[in-house]
């Protein structure tokens, strides 16, 4: 998902280290088990805090980096109605970034620190945003598949044990489901359009299908610390469970569009009622996490350029605020 980097075994930072279980730990776990929300001033284990900071920060970075592939088509949207819808969507994603950074700040980190980590290449964001948007249909495919996958993961996060994160997710999910419907409607227009539009739609599905499945992170047997996160109710369902739900929901939608999912092994298992699907190419996923995706460098470069070129503007705003405060003091004093 947007926070899939957390699940990789190579990523040791959030591994719970063995330590003594204290009374605080026991009380904390009892509160979690009773479905109480943990609030910023409450006692919490360091591991819980660390995991949440990393997860929320990755989620926030994903929203911000995610503005780039979609923003890539705003100036080329093919109708004014679509342009307005895309502007609104990308603006929403920026808003999601903002609430999520605020939620992370309740855990004692600053947004600037988190942004610095992103720009230094030390923080992760969802692998999905390292793929390019090559045609207009990619905007439909992202809304339908990427926002669709995000919803699968984020709806359970609305019940996350950490209050500020859960509350941010409620607001985010409402908007993501709107994005998903809008993306699907865009795909439908293409699928029902000219032969060229239909080809565009199929091509986008071909390129976005597997990366969307990878958004859920490594398969359960490869996932490093699901058990602790489940116990803390940061995570409620495993990566594979969520991925399966996504496939089950999405395959009929593709059929309705008259598009073909690029997986020759995909079939409905009549007994289980679930779709079985082919093997995911985890080597591609791992390469992207290492920075070798088609757009990893471009995405970070774009974020750094915006940050560096904006430095004089931020400095001006700070300097002006200081001058104002000074004048105010003089007037009062």
């Amino acid at each position: 998902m947007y926070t899939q980097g957390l699940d990789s075994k190579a990523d040791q930072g959030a591994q719970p280290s063995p330590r003594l279980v204290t009374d605080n730990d026991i009380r904390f776990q009892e509160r979690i088990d009773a479905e109480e929300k943990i609030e910023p001033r409450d006692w919490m284990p360091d591991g819980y805090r660390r995991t949440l900071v990393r997860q929320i920060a990755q989620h926030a970075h994903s929203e911000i980096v995610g503005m780039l592939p979609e923003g890539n088509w705003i100036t080329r949207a093919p109708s004014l109605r679509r342009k307005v819808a895309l502007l609104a969507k990308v603006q929403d994603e920026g808003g999601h970034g903002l609430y999520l950074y605020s939620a992370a700040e309740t855990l004692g980190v600053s947004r600037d620190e988190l942004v610095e980590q992103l720009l230094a290449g030390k923080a992760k964001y969802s692998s999905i945003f390292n793929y390019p948007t090559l045609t207009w249909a990619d905007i439909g495919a992202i809304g339908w598949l990427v926002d669709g996958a995000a919803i699968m993961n984020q709806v359970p996060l609305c019940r996350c044990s950490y209050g500020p994160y859960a509350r941010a997710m409620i607001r985010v999910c409402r908007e993501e489901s709107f994005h998903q419907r809008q993306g699907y409607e865009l795909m439908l227009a293409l699928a029902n359009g000219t032969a060229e539009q239909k080809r565009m739609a199929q091509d986008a599905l071909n390129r976005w299908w597997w990366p969307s499945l990878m958004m859920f992170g490594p398969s359960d047997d490869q996932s490093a610390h699901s058990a602790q996160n489940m116990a803390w109710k940061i995570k409620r369902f495993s990566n594979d469970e969520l991925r399966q739900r996504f496939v089950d929901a999405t395959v009929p939608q593709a059929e309705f569009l008259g598009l073909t999912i690029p997986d020759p092994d995909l079939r409905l298992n009549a007994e289980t009622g679930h779709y079985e699907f082919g093997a995911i190419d985890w080597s591609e996923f791992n390469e992207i996490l290492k920075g070798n995706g088609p757009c990893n460098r471009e995405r970070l470069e774009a974020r750094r350029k915006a940050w560096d070129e904006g430095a004089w503007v931020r400095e001006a705003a700070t300097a002006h605020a200081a001058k104002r405060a000074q004048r105010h003091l003089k007037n009062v004093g």
Partner: protein
Amino acid sequence: MTIDTQQALFGFALRLGDTSLVLGHRLSEWCGHAPELEEDIALTNIALDLVGHARLWLSLAGEAEGQGRDEDRLAYRRDVFDYRNHLLVEQPNRDFGHTIVRQFLHDAWAVELYERLATSPDAGVAGIAAKALKEVRYHVQHSAEWVIRLGDGTAVSHAKTQEALDRLWPYTGEMFEADAASSALAAAGIAPALADLRATWAARVADTVAEATLTRPADGWMHKGGLRGEHSEHLGYLLAEMQFLPRAYPDAVW
């Protein structure tokens, strides 16, 4: 040249629609690249408003024209010489300072115009203006605050903003320039004479520029041409990008 009211409405709505659309397009180029997240959201939001205004004006233009052209037909199937936007708004973003100064000079004009249009006896014009007015009041507040922050910020930001103001000032004359359409509507009492907006615009600009510790450039020679379709080289690239899909797939509905 005298023209009838419908023709005048077409021309005037096209001028406002094109100006809103081109400026909205320029702002949307910032999306994901602004100096800070709040500003990314604000600029995108203003772009969204402006494209929204463009849709209303272009739809009105299409109705007034009566040839069956809708907002998209007008936005996507006209070439540079049929665009009627002010040259100011097609100027490239260059940096955040130029973007903000361009925005402020336009917003200060748009507020003056929409305040007057909101009471127009033409219900179509008044309706669009009343809706847009709420938004452009916020826009001018936003851009004026930034002009002040940048002008009265650091030595670097002051210099950059003064440079932007000097560079863009010669594009401000066109906003007050009458053309056949605006003159006909002014004569019919449907729209104000654009020259009448100048005094209040200039006063607002002078206040903000002074608060920003910037120097208001002298009114000298002014660029002209947008109103008769003679644009800068920049507009062609903007339209090439904006119109690519409808031009490449002329039969498609999106």
